């Protein structure tokens, strides 16, 4: 806990805030995007947005793995969960994500055996313990979680376990960032880079942002001081006319990344020709599937899934929120028809989703409440 509390020191936070104020030009607006949902959560959880001057606007990016899953994918998961003899395992965040005919939680109330796990290794352990059942693991997440899925499947193969399979919905971080940067709506001045993804793929994987798009990026840790310092570093780049890929989260991130994790992913996954993203549509070469060599561990090959493309509900504006065009509360159903207990869109489900984070933590009339 000591290790963590040092990165939550309010005194140091105030010092950083002063440095940030000194870097701000009074008439300019600074639009900074935090790519990762973990940062969105930290920002609201600690009230960081409240510590920033009004000209610094934080825009929530597409880096919440639950939020970017399209509805059709949830339907596929529900279909697998309803297969005979299947124990369907996933992270807790996924349970309440609405598909076109209910969520995994609804499927469970109707009789499907859906269980929450905290790691793909829990699913592997369940497969060992229950050889008479088929264990399906729904794998989601960016390069952060993909290595642990890969290592689990490698281990399953090594142990000769045949009743485990994986519904692979892993995605890659670079393609959606390029889609954002190529978009005519793009007005971002700099990026707070995803620390956990970068610990796997290395900070150099983000060098294309300054090189090709002329925007700075600072790879950030997840404690409040990390995020504040990254904002300060980005503003310093802008003030000094620099444009670089820098590392704030140096205690975990290197320039090159983690070779072993990378090798495991290469072995187990292959890049899909195209993958549908919620709000961003089909993006070529942006998703991972189980490779041919591990085909027998692929749940989508073991059973057939509907694989239908389901349009988002018309009233849902998750797409605009995920692209940073709308702020959460600007969505037309925010907080009224769409709430964490009855979400319409994915951004309202995961605690890393921009809408859920804002609804749960940020929704009060600022300035009116004085301590």
């Amino acid at each position, binding site marked *: 806990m000591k290790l963590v509390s040092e990165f939550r020191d*309010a005194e140091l936070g105030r010092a950083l805030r002063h440095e940030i104020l000194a870097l701000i030009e009074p008439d300019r607006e600074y639009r900074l995007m935090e790519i990762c949902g973990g940062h969105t959560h930290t920002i609201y959880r600690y009230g960081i947005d409240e510590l920033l001057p009004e000209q610094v606007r934080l825009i929530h990016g597409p880096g919440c793995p639950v939020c970017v899953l399209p509805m059709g994918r949830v339907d596929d998961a529900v279909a697998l969960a309803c297969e005979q003899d299947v124990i369907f395992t996933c992270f807790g965040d996924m349970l309440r994500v609405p598909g076109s005919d209910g969520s995994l939680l609804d499927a469970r109330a109707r009789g499907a055996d859906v269980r929450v796990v905290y790691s793909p290794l829990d699913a592997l352990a369940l497969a060992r313990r229950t050889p008479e059942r088929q264990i399906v693991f729904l794998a989601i997440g960016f390069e952060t979680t993909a290595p642990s899925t890969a290592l689990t499947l490698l281990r399953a193969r090594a142990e000769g376990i045949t009743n485990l399979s994986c519904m692979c919905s892993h995605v890659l971080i670079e393609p959606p960032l390029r889609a954002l940067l190529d978009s005519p709506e793009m007005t971002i001045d700099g990026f707070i880079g995803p620390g956990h993804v970068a610990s796997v793929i290395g900070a150099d994987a983000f060098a294309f942002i300054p090189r090709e798009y002329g925007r700075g990026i600072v790879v950030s840790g997840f404690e409040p001081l990390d995020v504040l310092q990254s904002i300060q570093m980005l503003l310093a780049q802008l003030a000094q006319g620099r444009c670089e890929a820098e590392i704030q989260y140096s205690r975990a991130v290197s320039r090159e990344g983690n070779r072993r994790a990378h090798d495991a992913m290469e072995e187990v996954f292959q890049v899909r020709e195209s993958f549908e993203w919620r709000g961003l549509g089909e993006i070529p070469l942006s998703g991972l599937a189980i490779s041919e060599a591990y085909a027998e561990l692929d749940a989508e090959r073991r059973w057939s899934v509907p694989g239908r493309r389901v349009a988002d509900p018309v009233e849902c504006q998750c797409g605009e929120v995920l692209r940073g065009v709308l702020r959460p*509360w600007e969505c037309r159903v925010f907080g009224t028809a769409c709430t*964490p*207990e009855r979400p319409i869109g994915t951004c309202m489900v995961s605690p890393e989703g921009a809408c859920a984070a804002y609804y749960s933590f940020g929704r009060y009339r600022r300035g009116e409440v004085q301590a």
Partner: protein
Amino acid sequence: MRARSEQLITAIVSGARSRRSRFREERITMAHGAGGKASQSLIEGLLLPALADEQLERLADAGTIELAGRLAALTSDSFVVKPISFPGGSIGTLAVNGTVNDLAVSGARPLAMTLSLILEEGLEASVLGEEIEAVARAARHAGVRVIAGDTKVVERGQADRMYICTSGLGLVDERCRASPSALQAGDLIAVSGPVGAHGTAVMLAREQFALEGDIESDTCSLWPAVDALLESAGGELHGMRDATRGGLASVLNELARASGVGVLVRERDVPVLEPVAGACELLGIDPMYVANEGVLAAFIAPAAAERALGALRSVPGCEQAALIGEVTAAEPGMVLVETSFGGRRVMDLLAGDPLPRIC
């Protein structure tokens, strides 16, 4: 312009939240038992309209009824905790303390309780024997008699080892003026001890997380704490509730809503034991939402608050009682937290269920 429309939206959302929840589900999910928003919609949208009773509508921990010129408090509770024993307690201790505490925070001195057992075929007799001993011990300690009971056995697989249902009867103390709807702006908020220990202890006892910690449940009778508060603050004690399912955060939300006031909590002043804080950090759970079985929150007029805190701290087990925040007139129905980092945020009811079957 931007700020105004954000304010408009928050006002609309606050309006929507303050209305009574509707219940529109097709089936019961685990979230309906979690003490958060889904539970609220089940209670307000299905149970209250059908049962229509003004005592029930108060949503207090116990209902009151006049008997022979005295005000009696009656409560009901059930226990499905898994596993049935854990460091610091077991289903038997919980059944007594949970029942007694619902009476205590209603300002009632516990007198008697009933005990209904639902047992799964195959349950070891020694386990049942131990739990009944635990009930007897906890009842003696809390000064409450077990005066009626019932036993049912169901086929293997139709229940998980054993469940306990209770009712509790007490007499409302004449010093007590507290009610869930009597909080006033300016009241200071006290908690009787460190939060989050019970839920964390049960969670670790499940051995689901490959985590070990030296954490014991806080289960205990709260009547001595309530007695001390009533003696020191009397009518200045405006409200109290034990922070069970859904934790301190849920209790603060419930009472803010019932009284139509706001609540501001200083995160750094809320006592949390170091191992509890560590385990919660690793699991990504906020201890403010973790269940307690022997911690109450009390709302006290400012003039009496320090006195009440002193009295509370002299009660064994409440040495770490602390003042953690205040009731405000702004933002009715809403709980705000001043984070340890210096920012501010909302602390809402939970939508889902991080830890099922904790009591």
